């Protein structure tokens, strides 16, 4: 049975701490755009901890919702890409081939979740900040689209090891950087096609929802509603 990588985010656990955000930057060589870039709305977070106010003082609440690429089953971003720079890989991941991207930005418009970010300029790392770069992840240059990859480099590593050792990938063995770091253990990653995996068990919870389900992109990120 083919794998379908997926993620569950328990909004009742998530405290909005944003450790996932920085973990993703560190793991995936995401450039910082600086004051001006940020002011122009060009910050490159692959995962955003979105937050929404409810009510007015003093009966006020704040809801956090980390939003990353939902790795859609029917990804609107894929069909519109004229050069197959973004496509569906055999593990059901929405993959991004940086070298092929010519920067039409059509995919980003088609993405209902605005999960995609674009290199409006060449990234800069003031020396020696460049030494922090993860050699497993290629650095993107100007004019290229990028987004959360479910840390595909970690997935691939596990798959290669599994092939070599002839051992199947154990549930929970692959941990994207955000999942690994999440202090509240709000994020769970695994194979949704494996009914025994933690992620698919949680996905069957009665708290399970998907973001903008009505759009019909069949996301593979499942949110568990916060109870209160």
């Amino acid at each position, binding site marked *: 049975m083919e794998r379908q990588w997926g993620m569950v985010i328990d909004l009742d656990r998530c405290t909005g701490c944003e450790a996932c955000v920085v973990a993703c930057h560190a793991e995936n060589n995401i450039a910082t755009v600086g004051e001006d870039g940020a002011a122009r709305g*060009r910050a490159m977070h692959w995962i955003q901890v979105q937050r929404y106010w409810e009510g007015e003082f003093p009966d006020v609440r704040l809801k956090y919702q980390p939003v990353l690429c939902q790795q859609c089953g029917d990804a609107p971003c894929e*069909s519109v890409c004229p050069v197959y720079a973004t496509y569906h890989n055999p593990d059901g991941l929405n993959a991004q081939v940086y070298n092929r991207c010519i920067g039409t930005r059509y995919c980003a*418009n*088609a993405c209902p979740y605005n999960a*995609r970010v*674009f290199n409006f300029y060449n990234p800069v790392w003031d020396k020696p900040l460049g030494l922090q770069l993860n050699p497993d992840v290629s650095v993107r240059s100007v004019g290229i689209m990028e987004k959360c990859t479910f840390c595909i480099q970690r997935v691939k590593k596990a798959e290669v090891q599994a092939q070599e050792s002839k051992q199947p990938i154990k549930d929970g063995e692959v941990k994207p950087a955000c999942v690994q770091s999440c202090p509240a253990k709000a994020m769970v990653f695994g194979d949704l096609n494996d009914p025994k995996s933690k992620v698919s068990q949680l996905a069957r919870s009665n708290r399970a929802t998907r973001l*903008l389900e009505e759009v*019909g992109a069949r996301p593979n990120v499942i949110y568990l509603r916060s109870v209160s």
Partner: protein
Amino acid sequence: MAGPSVEQVNQEILRPLVRTSWRYYLTAGILGSIVLAAFFAFLYQVNSGIGVSGLDRPVFWGFYITNFVFWIGISHAGTLISAILRLTHAGWRRPVTRCAEAITVFALMIGASFPIIHLGRPYLFFWLLPYPSVRGIWPNFHSPLLWDAFAITTYLTGSTIFLYLPTIPDFALVRDKARGRRKKIYHVLSLGWKGTPRQWHRLEMAMRIMAVVILPVAVSVHTIVSWDFAMPPVPMWHSTAFGPYFVAGAIFSGIAALIIAMALLRKAFHLEQYLTPFHFDKLGKLLLLMSLVWGYFIVAERMTVWYGNESSEMAVYSSSAQGQFTHLFWIMVFCNLLIPFFILSIKNFRTITGTVIASITVVIGMWLERFLIIVPSLERKYLPFTWGAYRPSWVEITITAGTFAAMALLYMIFSKLVPIISVWELKLGLRQEGQSPRSALAPAKPSPIIAQPGLAAPGE
């Protein structure tokens, strides 16, 4: 007053090809420098990155794609209109067809450049084209952008031929009149036209076929352009009405552009006798019709959204209903609907000046329409946390200005190389209908497009 004689026609219409005033050079110089500025702006963007534009997350498309849709729309002036007029044997078409067809070709060239200008990596534009690459990778035929590539190239080829065919006899005419190097050039261009009955017959056949073929192509082009927006699930893009809506809008803006072009030519080259109030009146009526059609579509589109009251769509709707785009929206409605209706529905206002004013507002209004289709949806797409805003940068503005200058410049150059009015068709009209230009422009009797064989080639 008596209409022009055959000799007059030769002289007056060919005059621009031989005589060039200082005004011409001045205007060309000004336009040229604007085009140049736009070109440097583009080089600057390529060099420093698309970041020099005002684009951001989530508004990834702005002025450039607006211009793309706008110019492709304008291109529907010519070929489509002249094809319709030819097929319906509208006699008054004769002085109009060529400048119309020319608009198409140039507008397409300009419009087609924007999908390249707006790329993050424009130097790789050729990956959009299906060619056997060393990597054995073909483009994605699911992508509307690829359909664009096909549709536009087809339309460009088609309309170039459509422009070229009826020009052959006129090239021949110029060839016969010119001498020296010019003679050689026009000799080549006229493909050895002798005006023999066989050649006339062939030309007639070819033009019949082209006129029929070009119509569906023209319609398909803007339908496909509309699909760039209608296909992805973006609020207020994702609409079935977009196909016909865009085609109607295209013809609408096309006619307006044509009227403006004609008025300018008329002034610049003193073609008062050929481009008469009568033409502007007819085109004015056509413009009025399209204005109403456009109005119907905009009402239909917004009505359904408003009535449906679907939250993600209402978010976009409200930004032009009572949000940051309200002003632009009403300016658009005034330019496209109210002003044209007021001017064009009143006979006394349907003068040359009147139609031109209406046309100018329509061109402005239709550019705004493209902008208001593209940007508001991107600014407020689904999750409010990700909403954003867009302001164009000087680079985008310069390049946009450059395209209008380019259009005018190309047109000026064209009018220097090719008789801007189809000489032979006009003469034919005159022959068939006797001397009165008035009647020469009345609907021709359902006779073949070209007079019976045996008629000598015009111009000798």
